[in-house]
């Protein structure tokens, strides 16, 4: 750095540049970098905000505590299970929906609008509607019962509750990714399909050997966004369980646990440590995913 010698005009140029950027820099520092640094600071402290504010530095205590915290482990298991089921399902569903909508059916535009509607609805409203449909005497059980299928106590049976949330979320988020796939599908050159046809490929083969490989970069994006979104599951499980994560911790997710520690138990330091750990987990998951994708790249 010391090797550089800036002339006066260069300095003035740089100053001007930073001056123009200052509103953005200010916003980023106050609302993004500041909170991140503060959260890191909190994670290494025992924090009391109520009454006499106190910050006691405790080193890695907040992090080692997680290993013995059963609820943190349950929350992580629930969240991981949720990610593993929801991300592939919603990605495949989105791809299939997009492909069918791109096939040139009649009334395609209407279907696009209808499919996209769940994404436009506020998640709180969605949860309310689903909770109503999930009641033991609600719509879903009535339909299942009328065709002779088994019915479930969707919200109060610990073995089913998280699956209920999964179904709801897949239904609500798949259309958003469908739109992304749709946009990507329009980019695939018609000539590739023509060439495949000349080679005698069937519709399924065209989908499998032309569409899917060419969509791979988009799939990567969809999966990464999906992983990040599902790891942060909060609002649905919060509303489903009234904030408790019950029944029997079955809908307890990592973010819900963070909320409970931060706002109900007044242990902001431990909550911040959990949040930092979650961020690391998401980062690692994303990196692994990107690595895998790079290895597979064929074009």
């Amino acid at each position: 750095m010391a090797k550089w010698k800036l002339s006066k005009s260069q300095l003035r140029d740089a100053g001007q540049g930073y001056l123009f950027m200052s509103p953005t820099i200010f916003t980023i520092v106050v609302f993004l970098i500041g909170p991140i640094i503060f959260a890191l600071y909190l994670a290494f402290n025992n924090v009391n905000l109520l009454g006499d504010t106190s910050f006691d530095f405790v080193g890695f205590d907040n992090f080692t505590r997680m290993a013995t915290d059963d609820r943190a482990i349950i929350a992580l298991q629930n969240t991981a299970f949720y990610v593993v089921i929801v991300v592939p399902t919603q990605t495949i569903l989105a791809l299939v929906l997009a492909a069918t909508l791109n096939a040139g059916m009649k009334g395609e535009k209407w279907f696009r609008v209808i499919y996209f509607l769940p994404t436009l609805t506020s998640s709180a409203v969605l949860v309310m509607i689903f909770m109503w449909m999930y009641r033991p005497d609600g719509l879903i059980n009535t339909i299942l019962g009328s065709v002779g299928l088994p019915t479930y106590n969707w919200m109060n049976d610990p073995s089913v509750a998280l699956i209920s949330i999964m179904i709801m979320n897949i239904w609500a988020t798949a259309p958003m990714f469908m739109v992304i796939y749709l946009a990507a599908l329009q980019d695939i050159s018609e000539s590739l399909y023509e060439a495949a046809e000349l080679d005698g490929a069937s519709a399924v083969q065209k989908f499998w050997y032309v569409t899917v490989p060419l969509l791979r970069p988009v799939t990567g994006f969809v999966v990464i966004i999906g992983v990040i979104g599902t790891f942060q599951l909060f609002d649905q499980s919060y509303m489903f369980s009234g904030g408790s994560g019950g029944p029997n911790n079955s809908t307890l997710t990592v973010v819900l646990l963070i909320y409970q520690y931060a706002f109900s138990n007044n242990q902001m330091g431990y909550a911040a440590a959990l949040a930092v750990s979650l961020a690391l987990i998401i980062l690692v998951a994303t990196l692994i995913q990107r690595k895998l994708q790079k290895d597979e790249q064929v074009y």
Partner: protein
Amino acid sequence: MKKTTLRKSMGITAFLLSGVVLTACGGNNGNSNGESTAESNNGSSGDQEEVTVRLTGWQSSPTEQRYFEETIDAFEEANPHINVEVDTIADQYMDVLRTRLIGGEAADVFFLDAFEAPGLIEAGVVEPLDDYVTDEFNIDDFEDPLIDAFRREDQLWGLPKDTSTLALFYNKEHFEEAGIESPPETWEEMEETAEELTTGDRYGFGIVTDLARLHFIAESQGGEVAVDNQANFTDPDVINALQPIIDMRNEKEIGASPADVGAEWGGDMFGTERASMIIEGNWMIEFMEDAFPEVDYGVVEIPKIEEERSTMAYTVSYSMNAASEKKEEAWQLIEFLTGEEGMETWTSSGLALPSRQSVAESLDYTDDEIYAPFMEGASYATVWADDTNLPIINSNFENQFSSAFLGDQSLEEAMEEAERTANNEIQD
């Protein structure tokens, strides 16, 4: 210093976010009454300067709201220079209140449940009231167990605004159909009755699985749920006392929880006649009148367990924010609301029972067929309050007890797990 401001701004941001979530969930908030009353009093301030006191609480029904406003109006009439601004927190009251206290935005006077009180008192955000209380206020008039729930370290941190107790509701029609003459007197009798009442489409007994409801049952054999501010669920006396509740559902199949039948809560279950008997509080009376007026029911004291009468009492205080800038006026408000006149206006609704003996006498609930069992209960009830960690102990109990209740694990296993996780979470 920098730390504090940053902390505050984060607190406020977080609070705003939680506000978004809450409004989205609840969809109703009744904070419209503050402004209108404030305006109506503007002219009559006299020589004293006008002061606005903020009051935070919750309201669970329009009827409750109406009586509450009436009581506040009476106060404003008696104290023309004080405006009361009421704002209602619709959901997750404690989370919101705590966040506001952290952000320095809390009201001057707020509702405080005895169950949550020790935590806030310990944090030093509640104003002790001893110095404000005058002889005229007649503090000895309060029921001892209720006011003691707000005493800590020899100081008084809140005045109980009212109380509620539990009693046994039974469906008279179902009793007639089954040919049962009188409601059960003992727990054993109740189980027998429940068995006779259980039919294909309804259960004899509705079970609410909260620790707040089961606490007195859990301690009926001499065990204690919390010892030294730590969970103590594995005490054999506690487990033995709770086992019959589980057996009623899983062994005898004569009881079920509201969730089992798809009801929102006990009142819903009883009102829709999916349970013939249920232990609920006096808040049910108004609910039944509004929602299920055609159901003919009776109320008796909770059947004796081990030859002893027992029930739960719940109480909420008016407490003062230690950071309030209008303590004098805030006290005047508390003094009125918990004084004989204010309490009589408020509790004449029947939604909650008075915490003052004199008011209980003057309202004459003891002769009312429906209210008498609740008033009787007040004399021997256990108040739902313990120490700072009760909320944590409570939530861990609920989580595990419900799984034992559903038959996923034995009660011993569930209680061991609950005790371990609770005491793990308590830490400091």
